[in-house]
């Protein structure tokens, strides 16, 4: 294990800084700026994975996360889970851990990381509420200074991006810095536990599929999903029947 040499630590901190920067920018893109969907798990995880050295590993995480949070919609003032914080933190931890352990992002490692970090999706709502409270102060200040005749009062708008950037960046930094420990845990898994964690990852995909079906808010959705399900099973059976 060379990670504890000076060079190893410097490299680890460099990785963590990259994770922090990209994670922080994604948090800003999610609601405050652009909203090109670069912060959705299916884009963010492979993108961040690429920056950390394993884009495919990021994609392994990003696709099921995207499906799990497909139905999370920000309607008016009601807040969904923070899928961006989770995707950024999970990728920051799991991709370097996979490189460290030499396994890459496999099913056991992905399941382990998700089980540990999932609460961040819920905690992310608190971050969102805290940002809103902070933004309310910005709004009050802008109103007061416009009333005093300051014609540039609305510039305060962009300050609202700072808090989500800073908090998400800090969490991603910590996750990437702790990644070697996750890698050690993956290396310590017995074959039986690894097999169990693979089962858990299959179950995550099951939840992802169920959540994706639920995300389609349409009375016809269950029937249409049944058609898609049946067609896929039939196609798979047909392909196996062939030599």
């Amino acid at each position, binding site marked *: 294990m060379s990670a504890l040499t000076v060079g190893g630590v410097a490299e680890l901190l460099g990785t963590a800084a990259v994770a922090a920067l990209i994670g922080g920018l994604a948090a800003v893109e999610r609601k*405050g*700026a*652009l909203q*090109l*969907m*670069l912060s*959705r798990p299916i884009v963010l995880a492979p993108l961040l994975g690429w920056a950390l050295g394993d884009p495919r590993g990021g*994609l392994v995480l990003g696709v099921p996360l995207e499906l799990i949070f*497909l139905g999370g*919609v920000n309607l*008016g*003032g009601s807040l969904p889970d923070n899928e961006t914080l989770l995707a950024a933190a999970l990728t920051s931890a799991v991709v370097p851990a996979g490189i460290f352990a030499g396994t890459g992002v496999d099913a056991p490692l992905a399941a382990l990381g998700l*089980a540990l970090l*999932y609460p961040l*999706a819920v905690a992310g709502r608190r971050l969102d509420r805290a940002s809103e409270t902070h*933004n*309310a102060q910005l*709004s*009050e200040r802008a109103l007061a200074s*416009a009333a005093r*005749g300051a*014609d*540039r*009062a*609305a*510039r*305060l*708008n962009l*300050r609202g991006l700072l808090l989500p950037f800073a908090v998400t960046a800090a969490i991603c930094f910590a996750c990437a810095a702790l990644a070697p420990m996750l890698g050690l845990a993956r290396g310590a898994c017995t074959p*039986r*536990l690894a097999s*169990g*964690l693979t*089962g*858990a*990852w*299959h*179950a995550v*995909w*099951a*939840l*992802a*599929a*169920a*959540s994706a*079906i*639920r995300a*389609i*808010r*349409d009375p016809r959705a269950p*029937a*249409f*999903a049944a*058609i*898609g*399900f049946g*067609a*896929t*099973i039939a196609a*798979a059976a047909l392909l196996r029947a062939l030599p």
Partner: protein
Amino acid sequence: MTGAAQATRDPRRVSPATLLRVLWRSLFLQAAWNPRGMQNLGFAYAMEPALRDLYPDPTARAHAVERHLEFFNCHPYLAAAIVGGAVRLEEEVARGAAEPRSVSAFKSALASPFAALGDGFFWLALRPAAALIAAVTEPYLGLWCVALFLAIYDGVHLAVRAWLFFAGYRRGEGIVTAVSHAHLPQIIGFLKGSAAILAGGIAGRSVVVAGLPHRPWHAVLIAVLIVAMAALLPRIGLTAALYTAMALGLALGGGFL
């Protein structure tokens, strides 16, 4: 306009460059989203370059900024139409052809209905459909599925956002009629139907993958889990569902059952 065009720009119109700056700034509409004014600060921020063109006097400009710091909330993309329309109306206000109240009335009449349109089309139809297309094609396209997702989603998103902004600027209140010609309900129905079929396909594939190699009863259990989760999700919530599913999967995969 004569040959010496540079000398005769109408001070009561915003320049094309300013219009582009307003469009750019409207991409930051929710930077300071807050429960009291919601997108108020973002709206005023987007309007600022236009107000600078229209109100050379700083005090008058500050008054105009203050007017735009009133409550506003819309879908972040559909709001582009309202920002565009508000610039048009501000030109009329600056010319003395309209009351400041009319800008406010225009914003508040369109904000909520347009929010509903944007939620229904972008959040609940286009985004799930584009993400599911990417998820279904991922085994074949690999990382290119991400590019496909962004091409589908942002191709539509950016085109619609720019069109709404300029149409809002050109037509003002006429934007409502323009949007009504877009046949949104039919498109939404098609996108949701396709998305549901693809989500079913994902479910089928998860079952097949869990059954490999030679574990047919794993496949059956995963299928049961999918149906149970789809039925229970609204009641138990994502967190409980995730940990329950993972615990079951762990027990199953590790042979602890």
